[in-house]
C-alpha cells in the first residue's frame, strides 16, 4: 500500500528531504495482479463511458486547487482506473482531497465527469474500508450522512463535535475559541435541526435499491 504523504517529511519545495538513504525497490506490475474490468465498472458508475476516452493531457491536475497535496495527480488516478490498478487508485490520497469544486469537470477536453469519478472511488473505498482508521474525511462524510439520515437536516455544530470525537479529540480545544465566537454571534448552535415529516425520509431512503455499490470481487 502506498502511504499518505505527510508534509512533515517534506522540505519547503515539496521534494523528499535529502540526506536519507533511499532503499532500492523492485517495481513491476504483472497483468494478473490487475483488475482489468475496473475502468469500465467505474466509468459506468460515474455516468457514461467517457472516462475511457481520457487522453492524459493533465488539465484536471493543473486546474485542481488541491493537486499540490496529492500523492498521484488526478490524471494518474484516471490512468490507474482505466488500466485496472484498483488498489493503487483506491488507496490514493487524491480521492479524499477532492473538494468537489468541479474545475476539472468543466475544463476536461474529453468531458469526463472527473468529480463523479472521484465520488465513485470514494464510495468504492468506503465500501471496502480502504482508508485509515482515524482519517477525518470519510468520517466527516459518514457523520454528515448519519445526522441527515436521522433528522433530515444537518446541524453544523453537532457535525463538528462528531468529527473531533472520532478523529482527534484534542482538536476540540484548538477550535473552541472559534466555536465560541460563532455561538456568540448566533451563527452556531448545538441544537439539532429537524424536519417535521421524518417518516418521508425513512420511506425514501428505505426504497433505495440495496445492491448499489457492492465492491467488485
Amino acid at each position, binding site marked *: 500500500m502506498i502511504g499518505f504523504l505527510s508534509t512533515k517529511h517534506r522540505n519547503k519545495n515539496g521534494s523528499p528531504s535529502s540526506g536519507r538513504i533511499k532503499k532500492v525497490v523492485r517495481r513491476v506490475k504483472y497483468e494478473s495482479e490487475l483488475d482489468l474490468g475496473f475502468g469500465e465498472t467505474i466509468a459506468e458508475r460515474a455516468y457514461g463511458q467517457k472516462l475511457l476516452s481520457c487522453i492524459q493531457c493533465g488539465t484536471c491536475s493543473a486546474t485542481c486547487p488541491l493537486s499540490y497535496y496529492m500523492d498521484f495527480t488526478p490524471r494518474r488516478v484516471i490512468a490507474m482506473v482505466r488500466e485496472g490498478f484498483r488498489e493503487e487508485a483506491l488507496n490514493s490520497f487524491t480521492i479524499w482531497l477532492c473538494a468537489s469544486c468541479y474545475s476539472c469537470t*468543466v475544463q476536461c477536453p474529453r468531458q469526463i465527469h472527473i468529480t463523479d469519478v472521484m465520488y465513485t472511488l470514494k464510495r468504492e473505498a468506503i465500501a471496502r474500508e480502504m482508508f485509515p482508521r482515524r482519517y477525518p474525511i470519510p468520517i466527516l462524510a459518514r457523520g454528515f450522512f448519519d445526522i441527515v439520515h436521522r433528522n433530515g437536516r444537518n446541524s453544523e455544530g453537532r457535525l463538528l463535535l462528531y468529527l473531533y470525537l472520532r478523529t482527534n479529540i484534542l482538536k476540540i480545544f484548538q477550535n473552541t475559541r472559534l466555536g465560541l465566537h460563532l455561538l456568540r454571534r448566533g451563527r452556531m448552535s448545538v441544537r439539532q435541526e429537524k424536519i417535521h415529516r421524518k417518516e418521508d425520509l425513512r420511506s*425514501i431512503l428505505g*426504497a433505495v435499491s440495496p445492491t448499489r455499490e457492492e465492491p467488485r470481487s
Partner: protein
Amino acid sequence: MKYLYYPGCSLKSTGRPYDESLRAVFAALGIELTELDDWNCCGATAYASIDENQAFGLAARNLAIAEAAVTDGPPTIVAPCSACFLVLTKTQRYFEDYDHVRDGVTRELAAAGLTYRGHVKVRHPLDILIHDVGLPAIAKLVQHQMKGLHVASYYGCQVVRPFATFDDPLYPTSMDAIMRSLGAETVDWPLKTRCCGGSLSGTIKEAGLRLNQHLLVEALRKGSDLVVTCCPLCQFNLECFQKQINKNYDERISLPIMYFTQLMGLAFGIPEKELGIRRLFIDPLPVIGALKGGVPAHV
C-alpha cells in the same frame, strides 16, 4: 416576482447573515420569497460520498415538495447556498439525463407518497438578480453609492460549476456587475472561482488553510478593501480562519468577508441589524464608512 426559497442548513447556522440579508434585499426589490415547506438537507457533497442514490432521493424530496406547492407554471426554487444549488441542480439534471436516476428517484419518492415530474427550475440569487430583476432596477434602489470601494467578488466553485448556465464557469462576471451597479469598483482577480477547500479546513488543515491564504493574499494584492461572496462555506472559511492563517503562515491579514447581499443591503440603506452585519467576525463598516460618500457606521 415570486419564488420558492430553499435556505438550506448552512443559512440556518453559520450562514445566518446571508439568510437575513438576502431576505431583506429581495423584499426591498419587491421579490416575494416563500420558504419551501418542511425542506430537508440537500445532501451536499458528503452524502454523495456515501450513497449516491440516497443522495438523489434526499434532494428530490425538496423538488417534489416544490412541484406540489406551485400549481400555476413551472416552480422555481431560489437556492442561495452553493452546495444546495449544485446538488439540487445536479439532481434535476441527472433526473432528466439518466433513466436509472429517474427511475430510482421516482420509486423512492413513491414510497413516501410523493411524485416528481421534473419540472422544477433551480436558480441562484445571482441569476435572479441579473436576469429577472436587472441591473437598472438594482441601481435605482441605491441610496449610498459605494464609490471608491474596491471589492473582490468571490464566487467560489459550486455556484458556477458544473451545471450553472447563467455565467461563465471559470470567469464569471454577474456578481461583479451587481457590485458595479452599487457604485463600487471591482478588482479583476484570477481566483474568483478557485475553491476555498470546503470542509478541508476542518479535515486537512494544511490544505484547507493554504487555499484560503492564497485567496486572501491575492485579493489584497489586487487592492481589495473587502471580499463579497455568495456561498456560506466560502464566507466561513475565508473569514473565520484568518487568525489561524495569520498564525500558521506568518501573515497579517484582516480582510472583511461579507455576503454580496449584505453590501447590497447597505447600499440600499437597509439598517445593518436586518443584514446580520454584527454577526461577522471582521466588521466591514469601518472600511465602507471611511469612504467619502460611503455608508456611515451608524446605519
